[in-house]
C-alpha cells in the first residue's frame, strides 16, 4: 500500500472522522461537548483496555528479554527528547527558557490516546505489537518531565515550584499510568481465559469508545486552534510538526537496533512522536507555574496531536514496515 492509500484509509476511518467532526464543531463554535466526568472515564476505559490487551498478549507470548532493553531504551529516549526539543525551541523560536522547558516536557513524554489510535491503525492492517509495549509506554511518561524540570532549573533557578522528588512521585502515581500498568498486570495474571468474560466491554467496545473520545479531543483541539493565533507563530507551528518527525526517526532506529517486530516498531515510533497532554501539563502547572499553559497545550493538542492522528500514524506504520517488514 502506498503512503497515500494508507493515509487516506486512516483519515476516512470513523475514529479520525469523529476527531475532525469535533474540530469542525469547535471552529464553528457549536456548544457540542462531552462532559468532563465522562471524558475522564473514557480515558480511564481506554487505559484499562490497552493495559488488559497488552497483559494478555504477554501471557500468551511469554516474557522476552527484549522487554528489558525496550524499557531501558524507552526511558532513555524519554529523558533525551526534551533536551533536543529544548535546544530546537531555543534555537529556532523566540520562546524563553521556562516555556521552552515546559514544552519540551510534553514532547518527551507520551500521549496515551495517540497510542490507542496507533493500536487501532495497526489492527486495521492486521498487526499487533509486543504486549509489553504497554509497560514501555508507562515508563516513558515520567523521565521527560524530570529532564524538563532540570533544564528549567539550570536556566531559571527560581522558576521551580516543586522539588524533583515531589514531581517524580506525582508523575509516576498519575492516575492514567496506574490504570495502564495495573490493567497490564491484571491482563497478564488472568490471561486469555480470564479476559473472556470482560471482553464484551474492554475489547469489543474499544473502537467505538475511541470514536467518542476523539470527538471530544477534536472539540478541545479545535477550541485550542481557534485561540492559537494569539499564542503560536509559524516557528512554533513548524516545531509542532518537525519535532514528532525527529523523535520518530530516532525511535525508529532504536527499535530496529533492539529488533522489535513491525507492530512494536510502529508503536515505539508513535510513543516517541506523541506529545503528552495530561500528565505533562498537570506536572508543569505544579513544577513550572510561570510557564504559559496556552502555549504547551495548544502546541501539543492543537498541532502535534492532529498531525499524528491523520498523517503521522500511517507514516510511522510505513516506516516500521520498511525497516522491519
Amino acid at each position, binding site marked *: 500500500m502506498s503512503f497515500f492509500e494508507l493515509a487516506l484509509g486512516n483519515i476516512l476511518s470513523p475514529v479520525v472522522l469523529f476527531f475532525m467532526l469535533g474540530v469542525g464543531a469547535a471552529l464553528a463554535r457549536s456548544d457540542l*461537548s462531552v*462532559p468532563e466526568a465522562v*471524558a475522564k472515564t473514557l480515558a480511564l476505559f481506554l487505559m484499562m483496555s490497552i493495559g488488559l490487551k497488552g497483559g494478555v498478549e504477554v501471557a500468551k507470548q511469554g516474557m522476552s528479554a527484549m522487554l528489558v532493553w525496550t524499557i531501558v531504551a524507552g526511558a532513555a529516549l524519554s529523558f533525551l527528547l526534551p533536551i533536543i526539543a529544548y535546544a530546537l525551541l531555543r534555537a529556532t523560536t523566540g520562546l524563553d527558557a521556562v516555556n521552552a522547558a515546559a514544552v519540551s516536557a510534553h514532547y518527551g513524554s507520551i500521549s496515551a490516546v495517540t497510542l490507542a489510535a496507533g493500536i487501532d491503525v495497526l489492527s486495521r492492517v492486521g498487526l499487533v505489537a509486543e504486549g509489553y509495549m504497554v509497560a514501555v509506554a508507562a515508563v516513558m511518561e515520567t523521565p521527560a518531565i524530570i529532564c524538563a524540570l532540570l533544564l528549567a532549573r539550570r536556566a531559571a533557578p527560581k522558576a521551580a*515550584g*516543586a522539588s524533583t522528588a515531589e514531581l517524580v512521585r506525582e508523575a509516576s502515581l498519575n492516575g492514567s499510568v496506574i490504570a495502564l500498568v495495573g490493567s497490564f498486570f491484571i491482563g497478564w495474571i488472568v490471561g486469555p481465559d480470564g479476559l473472556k468474560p470482560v471482553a464484551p466491554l474492554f475489547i469489543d467496545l474499544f473502537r467505538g469508545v475511541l470514536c467518542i473520545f476523539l470527538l471530544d479531543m477534536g472539540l478541545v483541539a479545535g477550541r485550542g486552534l481557534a*485561540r492559537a493565533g494569539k499564542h503560536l507563530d509559524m516557528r512554533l507551528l513548524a516545531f509542532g510538526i518537525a519535532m514528532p518527525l525527529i523523535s520518530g526517526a530516532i525511535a525508529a532506529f532504536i527499535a530496529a537496533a533492539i529488533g522489535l517486530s513491525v507492530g512494536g516498531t510502529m508503536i515505539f515510533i508513535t510513543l516517541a512522536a506523541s506529545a503528552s497532554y495530561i500528565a505533562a*501539563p498537570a506536572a508543569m502547572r*505544579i513544577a513550572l507555574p510561570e510557564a504559559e*499553559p496556552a502555549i504547551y497545550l495548544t502546541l501539543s493538542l492543537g498541532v502535534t496531536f492532529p498531525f499524528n492522528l491523520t498523517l503521522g500514524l500511517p507514516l510511522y506504520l510505513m516506516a516500521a514496515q520498511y525497516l522491519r517488514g
Partner: protein
Amino acid sequence: MQTFAKKRLEIVIEHPARKGLATILDAQKVTGYSVLPVIAGSGKYGPWDEAGQVTSAEGMVMFICIVDPTHIDRVIEAVYPFIQLRKAIMTVSDVQVVRGERF
C-alpha cells in the same frame, strides 16, 4: 442571637495547585476549608470553559476558609507567595458566625 466577627477568605486557584494550597492552609492550622468547583471563567488570557478541556489541568477551583480575625494576616502572608506565581485571585471579607469558638 449573639454572633462573632470572623474573616472569610476566598481563593480561586488553578486545579493542579489545589494540593499545594491545602498543605499551606493546613500548616497555618486553620480549622478547615471548603473547595467548590469552578466551571468557567475569564481573565488575562481570555475566557475558558470546562467543556473545552480534556484534562482538569487547566480548570480552577474555589477555596473558602473562615478564619478568626486574629489569624487572618498570618494566613494571608503564608498563602500570598504561593498564589502570586499562579493563576489565582484572593479576597477577604467580613462575616458573622454564631459558634465563635469554632474558628
